[in-house]
């Protein structure tokens, strides 16, 4: 048993050493962002930049691009997640129920964007977006149509794991034999049973959409990252503060999510 205890101790010190050294590398740029945004003109410290960032009426008046970017990204997040869920959940359920022969093909298509870099997709999407602009207008919101493709692989994996953990066929057959139509089966039977997977697919999509820059920037559309980048050319201190603020926000959301997810998992019996 003493061997065990020695190893425990050694592992603990190894753990702290590695996490400490790598953590330092990761902390440095973040500390630098804090330092950079709190510089006062004559030397010393000030919170002026942060006060500006959280003064919404001032931002609205002086930095409208930032406001537009935030609003556009919020809209994009909503539309992307909606299209992704409305398209993917029924399709994947349907394939499991009625067309198992197509499962490989659907999987292949969903994972395909992993091998096609976003910058390549932009090249190919340019003519497609000329048509989108022609039929639907120039709004930044239509970027969501391309973002759905970007989030496909991650969303597919999350949803596939969720659907694999329940007996889709039996659930659907029971519901149907009790007289439920397909919409009821989807909405009241399948969806509640895979809500953890839906949640995780949605959050992965949110993180990806909020961080997206390539497509929006090359199509000259607004989103959060494009706005922050633009702001960097005018007021680097404020831009860095904005970038840091949104990163912290994302971190808090992800951390909170890890507690929500585990809370639910612990209610379920262990599967091994």
């Amino acid at each position, binding site marked *: 048993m003493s061997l065990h205890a020695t190893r425990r101790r050694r592992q603990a010190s190894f753990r702290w050493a590695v*996490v400490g050294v790598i953590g330092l590398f990761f902390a440095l740029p973040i500390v630098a962002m804090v330092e950079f945004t709190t510089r006062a003109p004559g030397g010393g410290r000030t919170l002026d930049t942060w006060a500006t960032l959280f003064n919404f009426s001032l931002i609205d008046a002086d930095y409208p691009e930032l406001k537009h970017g935030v609003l556009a990204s919020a809209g994009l997040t909503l539309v992307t997640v909606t299209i992704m869920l409305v398209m993917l959940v029924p399709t994947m359920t349907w*394939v499991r129920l009625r067309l198992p022969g197509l499962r490989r093909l659907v999987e292949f298509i969903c994972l395909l964007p992993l*091998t096609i870099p976003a910058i390549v997709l932009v090249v190919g999407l340019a003519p*497609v977006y000329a048509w989108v602009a022609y039929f639907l207008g120039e709004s930044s919101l239509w970027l969501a149509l391309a973002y759905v493709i970007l989030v496909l692989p991650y969303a597919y994996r999350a949803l596939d794991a969720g659907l694999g953990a329940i007996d889709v066929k039996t659930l659907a*057959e029971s519901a149907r034999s009790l007289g439920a139509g397909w919409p009821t089966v989807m909405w009241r039977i399948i969806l509640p049973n895979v809500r953890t997977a839906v949640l995780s697919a949605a959050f992965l999509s949110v993180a990806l959409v909020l961080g997206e820059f390539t497509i929006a920037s090359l199509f000259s559309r607004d989103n959060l990252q494009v706005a922050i980048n633009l702001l960097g050319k005018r007021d680097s201190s404020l831009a860095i503060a904005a*970038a840091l603020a949104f990163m912290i926000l994302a971190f808090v959301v992800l951390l909170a999510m*890890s507690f929500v997810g*585990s809370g639910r998992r612990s209610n379920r019996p262990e599967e091994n």
Partner: protein
Amino acid sequence: MAPIGRKPVGALLGVLPFFAYTTIFLGIPTLIVVVGAFLDGNGHPTFGNLSALTQPQIVAAFIHSTVLSAVTAVLGAVLGALLAYAVSTAREGGLMRRLVASLCGVLAQFGGVTLAFAFIATFSSQGFLTLWLQKYGMDLADSNWLYEPYKGLVLVYTYFQIPLMLIVFLPAVEGLRPQWREATESLGGSTWNYWRHVAGPILAPSFIGAMLLLFTNAFSAYATAAALISQGSPIIPLQIGGTLSSEVILGQENVGKAMALGMVAIVAVVMTLYVVLERRTTKWLGS
């Protein structure tokens, strides 16, 4: 109200929206790149775009991208694997694990502009570390090392490769059972024996797979370099971006598509390598 298992034609209608959508926003763009790479400005077939790829700045960009991705994939994989192992020895569900996992989720996804700004705040001529080091007589300010592919970009890319490695590799490390270690010990094996003959071979396929994933991740990255570098296009995604946003030379309208095709080809080679390696390792493990 057809019972499950009948009417396959009707059933196909259910997947029609998915296939229509992915055809328009994934299939057609891919085709446009592949076909466009072999068309000139007037829509006639040509190999001119491919031969334009031999222009010195494009060749240099391809080499920069490949070396940058390979170096940061190895660095990220090694450091990320160490971090993953260190974290895996912590208590499951403990605060440290949650913190590291959430932080890595953010840092891996929130690359791009934020990351570029973070490094500008640290290493640019007015950056935190630059000013701090100046006090001790070290000067980083007069060179543009931060914007060079083999110096600054390696550092910046490693910053998002390590967290991705942790996310991808942690499940594999968590799969190591304490019983295997105990079994090794009860047979008289040392820690080295355990890593060399038990844990190493078990982790090798996922380690190599993760490393190849990291390569494609760095190779595809556009945002970080675009936000960081304002002059020149040292890596291939920036070259492609340049053909989209600026005036292109007559007769070279589709060179961007040829470069895009080149990128897809390299990613495809890496992915094939991954499949082959994985099959081999499984075979070797199985025998």
